[in-house]
């Protein structure tokens, strides 16, 4: 699903150049649940930016579902993002003046799905995350865990190839964290490819594979026995 070959990225800081990613190689197959771990400054955010097509690598290859991601203009990047990727953020990033349903329906708006269908689909995904009754509530009427579940429903709504989760449990207490991870595991069980960036060991161990980043290189890439989050819920 994701192929990365010798990926390099550096940022210019005045006269200095900061080499953030130093030749990454890895691949993710369909249906995997991968945790990317690393301390801050290890390059995991940069990697996520590049995987999310929000930034471009200096050199190296990135193939997503067989499509080479290279030299994209903004329009094309936007199209690919909409078609291939679903984002889940630490701070949920729901639009606060839109109800849960409207937030979930938003990616479909950019797929030019008609309004009525959008809403039906949004309700469907909200009920999948168990928030059907909350469909018409605004984000600030929801708890943190509920917000993240709305965000997950939103990421799912566009039916992407890959879900990119950036510290999805970073703003949640451990109980809600496990609930969210349980949901992510369930989605993965349905065959979705998910990539989770985290720095929490227990969250990482709820994935099937852990990629450890340090100073821009992969220091460890191992398959783990998945800990089911449901046992903590």
């Amino acid at each position, binding site marked *: 699903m994701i192929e990365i070959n010798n990926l390099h990225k550096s940022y210019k800081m005045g006269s200095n150049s900061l080499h953030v990613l130093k030749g990454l190689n890895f691949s993710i197959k369909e249906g995997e649940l991968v945790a990317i771990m690393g301390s801050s400054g290890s390059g995991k*955010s940069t990697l*996520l*930016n590049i995987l*999310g097509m*929000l*930034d471009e690598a200096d050199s190296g290859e990135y193939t997503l579902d067989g499509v080479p991601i290279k030299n994209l203009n*903004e*329009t094309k990047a*936007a*199209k690919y*993002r*909409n*078609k291939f990727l679903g*984002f889940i*953020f*630490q*701070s949920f*990033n*729901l*639009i606060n*003046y*839109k109800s849960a349903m*409207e937030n979930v329906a*938003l*990616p479909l*708006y*950019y*797929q*030019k799905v*008609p*309004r009525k269908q959008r809403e039906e689909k949004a309700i469907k995904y909200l009920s999948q995350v168990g928030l059907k009754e909350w469909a018409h509530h605004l984000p600030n009427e929801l708890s943190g865990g509920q917000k993240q579940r709305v965000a997950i429903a*939103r990421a799912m709504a*566009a039916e992407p190839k890959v879900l990119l989760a*950036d510290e999805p449990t970073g*703003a949640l207490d451990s109980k809600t964290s496990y609930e969210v991870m349980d949901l992510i595991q369930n989605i993965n069980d349905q065959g979705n490819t998910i990539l989770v960036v985290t720095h929490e060991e227990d969250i990482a161990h709820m994935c099937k594979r852990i990629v450890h980043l340090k100073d821009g290189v992969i220091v460890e890439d191992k398959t783990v026995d998945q800990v089911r989050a449901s046992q903590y819920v």
Partner: protein
Amino acid sequence: MLDIERWQEIFDAIRKNKLRTFLTGLSVASGIFILVILLGFGQGFKNGIAQEFAQDAATSVWVWPGTTTKEYKGLNPGRNIQLRNSDYNFSSELLAEQIDLKSPRIFVRNISVNYGNEALVYGVQGVSYQFQEIENAKMSRGRFISYQDETNTAKIAVIGNKIAHDVFNEVDTPIGEFIDISGIPFKIVGTFKETEDREEERIFIPITTAQKVFNGGDKVNNLAFTLPMAENFDDAVANSVKFKSQLLSNLQQAHTVAPDDTNAIHVWSALEEAKRFYSLTDNIKLFFWFVGVCTIIAGVVGVSNIMLIVVRERTKEIGIRKALGAKPWSIVGMILHESIFITAISGFVGLILSMGLLELLGPNIEVDYVVNPSVNFNVALSTVFVLVLAGAVAGFFPAWRAANIHTIEALRDE
């Protein structure tokens, strides 16, 4: 523009951000409102000045004599110049083409005026029949001196309204009453109105009567002329300067006065005085233009500020939409679409309110120097467009920048 889905999205945003919409709209509407009211009063002020000045804006030229101060052709300085009928007739004929109205004037002195037992202390002036128009005096009752009165040396008088009011308050109308000037009865045939009380304290009698009855001989004190209206003001001034100098040199020759003796014969033209007023109104126009431009700038700054704040508030939303697959251009387009929609609507609301107010109150405003404040609709309309455009431009750059921010970090910070 015709994308219904987009309009729905925009109306959603407007409906759910009532306060933001209201504040943006209010700032634009009040900006336009203040601007239009200000422009209206600028115009009103201009109108007021023009009206105030129109009363005095006759093209009149006046001549009065003085004393020579220079020796000329063997004549000593210190001679008093005396204008005579011949001066009047000569000048009138020589410059006939340039003259519209003309009249001599004589101040009748050493007389007593009585109405019944009451002594009147008002000036008596002998004038010709065209003098009324030269003076811009409006007849309230009866008539002015006529040509026949002049040829017949009629013993009639025309009095100012103030005299009529002060002296003839016990009779219905002063017309037909007789006043006694040095023992000779004069019949009152008319009363006139002037802009100032002082000018209504005069009694006019035919110049011929004044000269024959009161030993005036052929002496006159003033010559008064008006010139025909010219195409524009500058032409009018040029005409009057030319007429003045020709008239002056004629009179100087007739009275053997040195050409550079400014004190012997005075020629005064209202138009040249008027020029000062005109340049005043020009300056006022300039001032209001300046104020208007400053107000527009203030409006532009205000609207731009609001737009900056709005876009800043929505930066995160822009990032979210982008992550969800929106093209940068569609995000910027949507935000500008919404803001232009709001600013345009509220701009027109402000425009309609302010113009309505001016229409309603404008004609009723009666203050010195402010007459019928009103505003040119096209000017007002273009200010609305300027403000809307300024808002759009001010909103565009931050929105564009926000839509092109790359990193996930932008979405990380709460």
